[in-house]
């Protein structure tokens, strides 16, 4: 049994300590907005926040999240009204959409630390998040738009 806080809620799950956090979120808690893409922290589709830091949940064992706070796309403050989500919708960044929740979670930690990032800072921060539809220019535009509105 592992206890952790997910989206401001204390939860206890019957997961093995080595079970990746990704499957705890998706399977034990039903939070399917966090996606499986590679399983080896090489694509960023599974990005969530652990104590406010962007992490690849596919490569974090559940034991490492025990007693700590995890935020997923479902728990992003404001939900559909979060400035990044609103910018994502306004720009229409997603195509297939599969990677986009991970992109948004990655972007959120940039804006938390650097409210007015340069384009180069955005690209550097987002470079580990793959988008096979190649919506990168729209992702950068959405982050710039959200930064302007925060």
């Amino acid at each position, binding site marked *: 049994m592992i206890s952790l806080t997910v989206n401001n809620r204390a939860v206890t799950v019957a997961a093995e300590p080595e079970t990746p956090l990704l499957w705890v979120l998706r399977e034990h808690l039903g939070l399917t907005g966090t996606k499986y893409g590679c399983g080896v922290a090489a694509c960023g589709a599974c990005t969530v926040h652990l104590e406010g830091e962007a992490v690849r949940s596919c490569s974090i064992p559940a034991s490492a999240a025990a007693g700590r706070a995890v935020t997923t796309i479902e728990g992003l403050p404001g939900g559909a009204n979060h400035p990044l989500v609103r910018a*994502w919708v306004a720009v229409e960044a997603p195509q297939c959409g599969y990677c986009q*929740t991970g992109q948004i979670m990655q972007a959120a930690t940039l804006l938390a630390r650097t409210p007015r990032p340069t384009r180069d800072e955005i690209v550097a921060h987002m470079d580990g998040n793959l988008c096979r539809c190649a919506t990168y220019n729209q992702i950068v535009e959405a982050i710039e738009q959200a930064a302007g509105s925060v």
Partner: protein
Amino acid sequence: MTDGMTLSRRGLLGTGLAFTFAFAGPGTAEAQSAPAGPATLNAYVRIAPDGTITIQAPVPEMGQASNTALPLIVAEELDADWSKVRIETAPVRPAYDSPVFRSQFVVASLSVRGYWMPLRVAGAQARRVLLDAVAARWGVPVDQLTTEPSVVVHAASGRRIGYGEVAAFATVPATLPEIAPAALKPVSAFRLVGRDVPRFDVPAKATGQAVFAIDVRLPGMLHATVARSPGLGARPLTHNGAALLARPGITHVLPLDQGVAIVGEKVEAVLAARRELAVTWSPGEGATHSSEPALASYLADARDTAKQGVAVVRNGEAAQAIAGAARVHTAEFTSDYVYHAQMEPLTCVAHVTADAVEVWAGTQWPSLVRDEAAKIAGIPADRVTVNMLTMGGGFGRRAAIDYAIEAVTIAKAVGRPVKVMATREDDIANAHVRPMTAHRIDVGLDAAGKITGWRHRLAADLVVPMLYGRARLDAQRGVDHIVTYHANVAHYDVPAALTEHVYREHGVRTAPWRGIGAGPNAFAVEAVIDDLARQANADPLAYRLALLKDARAKAVVEAAGAMAEWGRRREGTSLGIGFAKLGLPQLGEALSATVAEVAVDRANGQIRVLRLWCAADIGLPVQPRNAMRQIEASLLWGVSSALTERLTFRDGAVEQTNFSDYEVLRASDTPQVQVRLIRSGEMPLPAAELGLGTVAPAISNAVLAATGRRLSAMPFTRDRVRAALGA
């Protein structure tokens, strides 16, 4: 907090028999269906008394946004108030077949083009049913009635009535009214088509609410994953399944035709067992296939004119023209295997009961999933329900339905709902690749430098037999239209042309890959055009304008040049251009030209693509902004496959294992992209794969302009660039 989505059961249009699960998210039609019972006007349109218009989207969504564009076409002819429209994903049944494929099948960027007339007719027909109902009730001739968005108007008496009110009393005739082409709206009167509306799928994708196959959770559902044989024909001989069955939560280890499935209660237990699974395979067709030596043999075949290929294009006597030419230009090109790398690994959920099958899949070919599931379960096809879920990327990979067949097979064996998910490692090991290719092009020129004959010999693996079966290839007299697409110079003034395809078969699994043959073939063709321009001391853009025959093709080349300020000299960068088409002459061809601005680092061999300017003629754009986005993505696939993407086989198995060693484009590699649409005609043409074929030649041509050296082997890896530059 145990269930990430809501499942609701609802009846389907006009049948009390078939039921399906629908995924009700906030704002979807299911959540708001009107109690009084909506009027079903035809397969595509139903209208509730409150005026809500529900339109069926006949094909699955994979990021191409056709599930906004297709209902928009219906709404245009229906004269619907778009704010009252709700979009539903249609069930899988013949009423929703594409007229092009006679199937619900999404390939070749033909959804909008293919459904264009049927959807216009469906919208016009529904409108006519409403008008007839109002004419009967008001006792006025129907030709005195007109419509404004969602309102029927009788101008003579000043009466008006909303579509919802009409739907409440309208009776739908047993035979729906026929709509003659002349009864359709003139394109000049369109108020929805051609103007951007928000994509309806975007909000759910930005909040994590969108439901992909991988997100489906059913009561009692098991999880499974499959280790697939390394190549076609290889079957499991032995495996250590008995030991894995002893692990907690593992319920089944099932040998399949081309794989071994592990089934269990929890996905993490299944994935852990997968890592321990050891299988020995019978030698398959391609057990000794290794890419590097094979590519050398492909090139030898392309060179060896004694080795007859299938004539794909034969226009005049090219061989004779080349034999008698004053001068012959010869060039050779290669391209490696590439992998789709769709972000959602292949996943399918299936439930097989005694007399029914239900499937939840992201698939480009739902009709085939239905038919194959029926065969596996031994039931009629109308007892199969296929839920078309939004795909985490398709790009052609999900035109093959191997993973759905496996899911239904496993579900039948275990008797419970089961989700079959590939690991990324298995997804790439089971890659259905774009074929590896080698090209030899000979061009005959007369004494004045005019082209007299063009011969393109292409050695490559096949796709058509893998996707459609060998009989289809035979019926096409051996022409693999997927592999050989764009291996022609039809738009150029070339009096005699021959394209031959020399087959290479190694048991490699293949599939259509975005842009199909245009990726490798337009690369070869457009590089040769630049070579010829260079030899003629002509500007490559001006040379194309002189050689292109049709005005639409010249227009895209001119426009791309203008966008890029082609004549302006750059410091440290150079420009190259490529031209490519999408579609077929009989259905209409979209045309594109792209200029790439490129910087080459001679020391380390790195190529950076800084900017792309693309002019695209896609006929009548239905959703201009989305069309530009799709073309931008297609161009960036061109960059990715030109620079880094490379899948290799060694001894019959894929060597790459994940995104760590199969490199796709990243944010830092992404150039600035400008797409300009050039409108022509009154019909939409294919868009979402347009431009891909322009990019590799534009990059190679830009490097040629800067260095005088030709990059002829795709992808242009650093090693290859250094070798080509002689560094």
